């Protein structure tokens, strides 16, 4: 539901960049979106072009990298990826774990073209 706010926040940051680099055109932006960030990928893909239309930027490509939930086990020290969202170590089944990825909501990188 808040994917439009997220799309607008991304575009705002790209506009800030474009404002300080007038010789550059942003061609592509790559986002990292964690599985438990609360963002629905398809809703964000839908909202992004709509937010872009009312911005000062030209059409650009959106790439979304989905980051799985991974945990560090505080008992056996194993690192594992959580499939279904139950926080357990895949190795020793301990629930004494710390989330190390899956909450990302980041602009990872951009491709820009210089005039």
């Amino acid at each position, binding site marked *: *539901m808040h994917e439009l706010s997220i799309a607008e926040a991304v575009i705002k940051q790209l506009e800030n960049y474009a404002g300080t680099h007038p010789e550059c055109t942003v061609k592509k932006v790559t986002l990292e979106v964690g599985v438990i960030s609360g963002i629905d990928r398809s809703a964000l893909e839908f909202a992004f072009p709509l937010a872009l239309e009312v911005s000062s930027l030209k059409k650009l490509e959106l790439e979304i990298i989905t980051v799985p939930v991974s945990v560090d086990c505080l008992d056996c020290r194993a690192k594992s990826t959580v499939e279904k969202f139950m*926080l357990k170590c895949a190795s020793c089944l301990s629930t004494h774990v710390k989330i190390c990825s899956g909450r990302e909501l980041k602009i990872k990188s*951009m491709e820009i*073209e210089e005039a």
Partner: protein
Amino acid sequence: MCKNCGCDAPKGNKHEHRHDHEGHYHAHEHHHDHAGHEHQHDHGDQPHGHQHPETTHVEMEMNILSENDRIAAENRAMLKGRGIVAINLISSPGSGKTALLEKTLDMLKGDVPCAVIVGDQRSDEDAKRLRGRGAPVTQIETDDSCHLNAGQVAQAFEKTLEPDTKLLFIENVGNLVCPAAFDLGEDFKVALLSSPEGEDKPLKYPSLFNTARAVIITKIDLCPYLDWDIEKCRQYVRGVNPGVLVFELSSRSGKGMDSWISYLKTLL
């Protein structure tokens, strides 16, 4: 080779980088300029030189909500400076956030100075219910937005906080998904789950239940009328958040309220 992008930037090329460092970032830009030269390409027996537009990869590594996070950090610093504990209450619409606050304010009245900021899309119905219980209450109408953000809360501080305020409750817009993503500058989040919603809510909405310090199971007075397995619910809550505090209460009957109130007092 640059460890960030793996590029083979020749020595001397402009090569800055951008990282997120809890609230600030460093610019961090990859420039592979070709020092004034053009790329020459041989096209069979008709050689010609032409210039390609340069595409440059720029590492950003920035939080998308960095502007919200910046304001939230200011809110947090201000609240801490004034010795105020702030709690962000999040749940689906109708889970009993306002009823819990009504009862909480009544029980803390004259003992702990409280304040409330409450968000809804429209109306001041919640603020009306919460006023007259010894705490200043500010209603924020978010219009079409499904969550509160740090800037809205910052604007409400001046008319809500009093010199002796110790405990600030921020009742977020009823929504289990979006509010979890927006830091408001609170000390911690509390997620509410009412018994009629079903035991499996934490599994369906892990992003909120995982980030909350405490989960309150509300409306436990309705349990006898529902096919409700409270043990299963506890397991699901702890499954997505192993160390979380769990309270079970009914704002209506008052059952379980004492332990919630005692917990609040330990925070001060």
